[in-house]
């Protein structure tokens, strides 16, 4: 009977992943305690060669590529003012699971004269929030970007004056606002200037741009910034024609793939210092045999100083990411090797010299590992993309301690859906470091 009651509680916990995660985080240090004793008995490994030199060179080039991606084209630049490219540290979702907020690697009080709009390339991403991350958060004080789909409980959503280009006809003006929680796309068109013309939009696919409403009470917003692609939701009649019920907008960029964004100023700003400081904690790594096929776990113990490791922190050899801390405790962490089979990763494909694609072009991809043989990992893309034949592959940030620009290795395309990455993987070593981010106070 007690077991059935416990199973009922576990079933309820299945539906509350955040609570389950908190419980796991609290218990993990106790679980890892006997493992520390076990790995202390492991023999000292032979010294391994470091990948620092090659990694650092590639990483610097990658940061240049990232900045170039975030900046808009020359035609928009003159109308927008002066910009700063700022790294994205973290992404936050609302309670419905919609990603609606970005946290930037800069303190909010270091951007007193910033304008509201935040862009990526030629697209509007969202608006710089006047409020910093709250005090009870580990990233307290950093600047927040409210994405276009952001809804506050305390105020009306930010509406963006926009227009849809309709071929030879005059553009259709409207306001774009956050959609409902049941909608498939995060933005909705409202207050159309010509509902009759809007009803003729049987198929979506048109591009939506900011229209730059004069004397906008919510603040000046430049015209011509991309918002996304129109999607029509409605009834389909017998002839296959769609009667629109709702006009939705699919944003130009998936916010999960944004590593950096542009913040704008009326006058040239002084570049603010980063809001965080990266500290490298030297660790000793020992492998733990686990009954999981094709996955390897390691126990990282802090070698020299008293330092707390953070869940999601990367294990680095120079600037090269080898693994990620999954469960952490005082002075130790369980590390999952990068490229574990079946796991999905957001990556950035930075093309090398190639006949098809210009050198330095960078594409955000999502892929999962399907095979690993020593230092060769074969990945499969989650959706087909046009990629160059050779590239350097970097991380796309998804957690506060996994900043973009961490080098993974050199990749070679195998087919339209598969590529091979040269990645050394983890072995028992004493000369690696865990990168822990600290918010500067």
């Amino acid at each position: 009977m007690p077991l059935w009651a416990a199973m009922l509680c576990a079933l309820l916990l299945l539906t509350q992943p955040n609570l389950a995660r908190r419980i796991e985080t609290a218990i993990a240090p106790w679980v890892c305690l006997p493992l520390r004793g076990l790995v202390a008995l492991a023999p000292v490994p032979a010294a391994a060669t470091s990948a620092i030199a090659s990694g650092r060179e590639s990483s610097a080039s990658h940061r240049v590529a990232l900045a170039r991606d975030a900046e808009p084209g020359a035609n928009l630049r003159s109308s927008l003012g002066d910009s700063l490219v700022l790294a994205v540290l973290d992404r936050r979702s609302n309670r419905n699971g919609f990603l609606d907020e970005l946290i930037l690697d800069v303190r909010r009080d270091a951007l007193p004269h910033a304008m509201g709009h935040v862009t990526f390339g030629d697209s509007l991403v969202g608006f710089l929030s006047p409020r910093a991350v709250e005090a009870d958060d580990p990233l307290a004080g950093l600047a927040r970007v409210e994405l276009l789909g952001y809804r506050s409980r305390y105020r009306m959503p930010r509406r963006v004056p926009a227009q849809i280009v309709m071929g030879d006809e005059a553009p259709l003006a409207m306001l774009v606002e956050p959609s409902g929680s049941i909608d498939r796309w995060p933005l909705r068109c409202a207050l159309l200037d010509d509902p009759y013309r809007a009803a003729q939009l049987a198929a979506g696919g048109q591009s939506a741009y900011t229209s730059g409403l004069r004397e906008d009470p919510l603040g000046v917003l430049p015209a011509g910034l991309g918002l996304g692609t129109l999607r029509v939701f409605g009834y389909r009649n017998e002839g296959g024609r769609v009667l629109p019920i709702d006009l939705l907008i699919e944003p130009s960029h998936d916010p999960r793939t944004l590593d950096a964004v542009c913040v704008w100023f009326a006058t040239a700003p002084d570049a603010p210092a980063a809001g965080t400081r990266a500290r490298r904690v030297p660790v000793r790594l020992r492998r733990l045999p686990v009954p999981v096929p094709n996955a390897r776990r390691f126990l990282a113990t802090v070698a020299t100083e008293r330092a707390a490791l953070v869940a999601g922190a990367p294990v680095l050899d120079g600037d090269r990411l080898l693994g990620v801390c999954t469960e952490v405790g005082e002075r130790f962490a369980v590390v999952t090797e990068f490229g574990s089979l079946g796991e999905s990763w957001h990556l950035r494909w930075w093309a090398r010299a190639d006949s098809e694609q210009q050198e330095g072009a960078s594409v955000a991809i999502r892929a999962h590992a399907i095979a690993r043989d020593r230092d060769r990992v074969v990945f499969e893309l989650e959706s087909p993309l046009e990629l160059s034949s050779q590239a350097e592959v970097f991380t796309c940030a998804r957690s506060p301690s996994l900043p973009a620009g961490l080098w993974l290795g050199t990749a070679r395309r195998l087919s339209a859906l598969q590529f091979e990455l040269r990645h050394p993987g983890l072995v028992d070593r004493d000369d690696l470091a865990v990168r822990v981010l600290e918010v500067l106070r």
Partner: protein
Amino acid sequence: MIAVFVWIFVAPLLVVADGWLAERLPWRIDLAAVFVMVAALELRSRSLPMVVLALAFARSVLCGGGVAAQFLALALPVALARPLRVVFDEHAWVLRAFLAPALVAVVPRALEIFAGISGHAVATPRVEFVDLIVAVVTLPPMAWLLARLPPLSVLSLRRRRRRSG
């Protein structure tokens, strides 16, 4: 209570031992299935939730999948196999030999299903026919051994009967 507390520290070592055996043996001996057999046939009802939870935590930290999914993947076979004690003699080797391959097949599949519900990706070993044959031979003696080693031996029904009888 002390035995349960000790088990919390022993459970991660059982998971590591499971991985160690999986790397070295040509066929798979699933120590999670061994534990489920012991819990279903040998342990007292009152101690079961804590004992299963301790192993679920260890497996969640080291193998992934989430603690709730790991708990359900272990507890459900325990709960389903436990009533067999009413019909059969719980020490009967025939019962254990029939139960062993069923547990080896069910535990990983149950984990896949529950982890899928909670949205965790988890890799589970593929169970081959030879694994089921090996389970028939190896799981009953290993379960017998695990039930007689501390700390689980302290929580066994056999020990309570001996004290009360």
